[in-house]
């Protein structure tokens, strides 16, 4: 038995509306993240491998060219002195090869480091877009931001050309060859050896 004469009590559905709005917001965020993930799908291992290859493709020829010139200079230096077939020439060539190998190693290591840096940058950009997406909760805006960020990432970085790799080595090789050229004639060396034959005029005063 109910004598309620005031009619049925009105139902407050504001919480239901708020919950629905929150679910819609979460759906928009999830959708926006899907758009971001889709935009960033180009940054797969093949993309970074290609970046690494591009890096080495830029620096390797510079090292190769410098090595070729250094080898040529080494050959000319020793050929001019007539000592091309000598052990010192081969020793210098060995040093040049080591430097060349180290230079190529360093290029590969730098390529890997640059690739790691790029991966980190991509990841940071993705995080920024996630944050912006959560703030905006607007998938379309997030997709636009993702496309813009992808465009900036694919812009070629500014890389400096290689410095002179073998200059010091070649100079020392030339100095060696010059020194050989200007050495004392045979037989004169004994006069300049310390303590040789007691001919020196100097005295050590204790």
């Amino acid at each position, binding site marked *: 038995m109910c004598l309620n004469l005031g009619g049925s009590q009105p139902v407050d559905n504001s919480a239901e509306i708020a919950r629905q709005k*929150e679910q819609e917001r979460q759906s928009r*965020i999830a959708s926006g993240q899907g758009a971001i993930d889709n935009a960033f799908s180009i940054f797969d291992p093949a993309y970074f491998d290609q970046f690494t290859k591009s890096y080495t493709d830029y620096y390797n020829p510079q090292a190769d060219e410098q090595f070729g010139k250094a080898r040529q200079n080494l050959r000319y230096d020793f050929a001019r002195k007539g000592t091309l077939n000598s052990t010192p020439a081969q020793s210098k060539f060995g040093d040049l090869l080591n430097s060349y190998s180290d230079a190529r190693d360093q290029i590969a290591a730098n390529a890997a480091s640059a690739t790691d840096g790029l991966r980190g940058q991509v990841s940071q950009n993705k995080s920024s877009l996630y944050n912006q997406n959560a703030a905006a909760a607007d998938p379309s805006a997030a997709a636009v931001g993702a496309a813009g960020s992808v465009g900036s990432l694919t812009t070629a970085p500014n890389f400096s050309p290689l410095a002179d790799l073998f200059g010091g080595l070649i100079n020392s090789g030339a100095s060696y060859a010059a020194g050989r050229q200007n050495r004392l004639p045979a037989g004169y060396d004994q006069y300049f050896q310390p303590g040789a034959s007691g001919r020196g005029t100097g005295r050590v005063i204790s």
Partner: protein
Amino acid sequence: MCLDPLSLATMAIGGIGSAVSASERNASNRAMVDARNKATTDEFARQDGYQQQSSGIFDGVLNKFSGPAQTQGLADAKAGAGAAIRGNQPTNVGSILLGGAASPQAVAAQDNTISDAFARGGERATALGNLTGYDRQGTQDRLNLTDSGRGLDTISNFSQGSASLLPLEREVAGNNAYKPPSGLGDLLSFVGNVGSFKGGEGTLPTKSIFGAQKAALPALSTGRWFG
């Protein structure tokens, strides 16, 4: 002291009316509390879901930092870095000898020089790969942390958004569960009061109500409860 049956009956009706009103009030309060509790437990269930998702992400990244995973990851990083560096080593280094003027001894000496340089270069490339492998592993660790951080941030966002609705949901659930009194209790109480008044030989103010001729109702003190 003696009460007539009518007075007793109407007093009992009044008592029942009060009991009905109290029962309805209690039932309404109970319904409001239950509704608020349900809103709270529903939110806790949602928060449990978020917590489980977060735990899944955290456990996943934590596993990547376990000893065996790190050891394996570092070994892979070293191997990968070493292979990449060795793969970039020069393979054709030419010669410093002049073609026709080189003696066989000089050619052999140069071959040894090149062979030794390649061997040493391979060793140094492997060593450099072992060194840079740590950097590569560190980068991978940071990327893993960034990935898990993104996932945790999203879940935290969802969790906070959901939790922020709880006060509203509790209030609204309580309000919607409120049951207004049916009026039966009040009616019975009224009947009981009127009957008791009549039992006390009071006069019902029917004319004062409908005809507005007698303004004042008799005071309760005029009843003869104690005969």
